[in-house]
């Protein structure tokens, strides 16, 4: 992964000093809250219902084991012993004291981490495929590009005061695991017929109140033009995006108001003047970045482990004769491009735990396991889980046993209980309704693993309000909290999808009372099982039949 240079470190030190100064001026009353708010937001510090929340950046989801240990330390010393992985691959602490935030940032800077631009109307953390550099279906590794974007967008002189927040996602694989179609800008690495690499560029996707799927603005942007082209898009948005209405300020509204063709023309006009001047980079600069993302040493074909076996290793036959291991292997691991390795997901969706939460002790253990089994590196995912991307097949059994001991081996990846859940009413001051209880209600109802496996991959995504931080629009089943005269109700949508076949869910019908949500989900699933074709996914079933069979089942019984 990317190693900080002295240059990066000097920059970060200045940033910490700047924020310390700003916070001191706030505490002394020299800065008022209105002005300080904008400054703290650009450093990831929100004021929530009960306390401040600090969102720390995990650039494109990559962490070293050393960084993970620091996150554990911060959770222990400055928070209540845990952190929360977000859908944008960052980590949040829910209970820091304002006075201590500069110290937290200084500690983070010691391990080359920060909270820069994790909130505020600026370019946010760039997200990507958590399996980058490990999965077989990759055209090119997106991470060096993400790092380039990180550097370019960090305290950019022009784009730090945009009409609204701005999120970029990059994928280099055929299968989209970065939800690029629901980002302000989505980038997909592709190759043209001549074998040159470029980006397919999407613009104007996003969830929230007015969800849109991104549209193609450029089919093949040669990679050397990436930054100037991004800058041209950002500039048109910065100049023309709406600033009069918070809910109409995202780039998706501008793109859809102008139409993609007019928007593209404007970008092209800008770009014609700027493509060779601002924000360029050289091939050497990029190669230097690329060299920071080497592939894991090749292990090759499955090794015969039997002779190495000293009790801690298990040969393949032994491993797979254990049904629990087998179930976990089938569900939570994926093929690595090197057949001697396996990609392992660590589920942060154990029973009784808020989705995405991880304790300090678990963080320390994950760091240790990453050092022993996965090149000392860890990734966070959009679905709020973690990944060890390069585990030697020989070590899987050992890893599984140790993960199980710290409750990180729940075999539910992609299954119903692998829910995405925003913080909701318990933490978020914008919420209409609670989400954590809904998560628990559903989890308790569908805790039978055999049933979940029979069901196949069905995603549930829960948001506590229209802002859609839980991405409910793109869940197979989306749950949106609504407030009706002070009472919490839940609006269901079905048939959404976040990957290559990105689609927005369709509204099922009238909202459901809080106590009935799990029942309603039960009815949806019964309907699905009754009407699906063999191997047909939930999404495909809804696409084929529409919402009617589901509606009938849910409302007939509820009435």
């Amino acid at each position, binding site marked *: 992964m990317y190693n900080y240079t*002295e240059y990066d470190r000097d920059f970060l030190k200045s940033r910490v000093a700047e924020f310390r100064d700003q916070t001191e001026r706030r505490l002394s009353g020299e800065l008022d809250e209105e002005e300080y708010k904008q400054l703290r937001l650009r450093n990831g510090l929100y004021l929530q219902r009960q306390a401040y929340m600090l969102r720390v950046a995990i650039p494109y989801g990559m962490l070293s084991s050393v960084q993970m240990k620091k996150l554990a330390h911060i959770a222990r010393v400055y928070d209540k012993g845990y952190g929360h992985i977000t859908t944008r691959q960052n980590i949040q602490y829910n209970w820091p004291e304002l006075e201590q935030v500069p110290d937290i940032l200084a500690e983070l800077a010691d391990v080359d981490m920060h909270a820069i631009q994790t909130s505020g109307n600026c370019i946010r953390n760039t997200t990507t495929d958590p399996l980058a550099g490990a999965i077989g279906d990759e055209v090119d590794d997106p991470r060096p590009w993400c790092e380039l974007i990180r550097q370019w967008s960090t305290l*950019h002189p022009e784009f730090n005061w945009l009409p609204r927040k701005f999120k970029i996602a990059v994928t280099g694989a055929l299968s989209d695991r970065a939800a690029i179609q629901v980002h302000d800008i989505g980038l997909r690495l592709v190759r043209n017929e001549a074998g040159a690499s470029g980006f397919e560029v999407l613009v104007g996707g996003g969830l929230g109140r007015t969800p849109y799927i991104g549209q193609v603005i450029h089919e093949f942007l040669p990679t050397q033009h990436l930054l100037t082209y991004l800058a041209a898009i950002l500039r048109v948005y910065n*100049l023309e995006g709406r600033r009069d209405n918070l809910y109409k300020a995202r780039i998706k509204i501008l793109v859809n108001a102008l139409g993609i063709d007019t928007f593209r023309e404007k970008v092209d006009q800008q770009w014609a003047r700027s493509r060779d001047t601002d924000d360029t980079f050289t091939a050497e600069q990029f190669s230097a970045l690329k060299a920071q993302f080497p592939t894991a040493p090749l292990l090759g074909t499955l090794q015969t482990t039997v002779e190495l076996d000293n009790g801690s290793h298990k040969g393949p036959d032994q491993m797979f004769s254990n049904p629990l291991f087998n179930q976990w292997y089938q569900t939570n691991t994926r093929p690595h491009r090197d057949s001697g390795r396996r990609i392992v997901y660590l589920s942060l969706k154990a029973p009784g735990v808020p989705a995405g939460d991880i304790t300090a002790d678990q963080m320390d253990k994950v760091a240790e396991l990453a050092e022993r089994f996965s090149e000392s590196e860890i990734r966070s995912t959009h679905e709020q889980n973690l990944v060890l991307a390069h585990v030697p097949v020989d070590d899987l059994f050992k890893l599984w046993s140790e993960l199980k001991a710290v409750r990180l081996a729940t075999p539910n990846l992609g299954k119903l209980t692998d829910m995405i859940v925003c913080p909701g009413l318990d933490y978020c001051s914008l919420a209409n309704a609670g989400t954590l209880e809904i998560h628990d209600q559903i989890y308790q109802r569908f805790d039978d693993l055999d049933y979940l496996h029979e069901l196949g991959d069905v995603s549930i995504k829960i948001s506590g309000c229209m802002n859609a931080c839980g991405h409910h629009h793109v869940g197979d089943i989306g749950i949106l909290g609504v407030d009706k005269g002070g009472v919490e109700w839940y609006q269901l949508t079905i048939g959404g999808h976040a990957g290559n076949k990105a689609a927005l869910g369709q509204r099922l019908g009238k909202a459901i009372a809080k106590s009935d949500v799990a029942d309603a989900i039960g009815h949806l699933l019964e309907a699905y099982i009754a009407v699906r074709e063999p191997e047909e996914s939930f999404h495909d079933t809804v696409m084929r039949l529409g919402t009617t069979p589901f509606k009938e089942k849910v409302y007939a019984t509820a009435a």
Partner: protein
Amino acid sequence: MPLLRNGHLVTDNPWIRLEDDVPTTSPAANAATVDAPLLVSMTRFLELQAHTNSGVSGVFLSPEDDVQLLSEHLHRIQVIVINFPKYTDGRGYSQARMLREQFHFAGELRASGDVRPDQLLFMARAGIDAFEFAETPDEKQIKQILARFQVNYQPSYALPVAG
């Protein structure tokens, strides 16, 4: 109004701002001299360009103005004032950067409106070199803010060797 130019607060700010509803024949406009020149809106400036010898060399922009329209006339302009109606309104940064980098404007770019010390560095890096404050700011603090970052990622980006 206190003006910060080249890192120093100066009092020398003779420009007379002529709003669009004040005619160019008014006493205010007539008071303008070589030593106390006029600032007019972009719309008016472009109208005046029809008259060859308008002599006006100062323009104040509003955030909606498309600065490309000035590109033919920049050699006649000494000062362009960029308005920040609220410090969170970032359109002026794009205007400044376009004027400097695309159209090579070499005169003074002056920020005016809601100009706050913590924004100075962004403004300076976007090409603004003079700052008009509503109240006299703390000069020491401003120096500190402007000198805070020894390194930046733009325009040299990734490089360990960048500077």
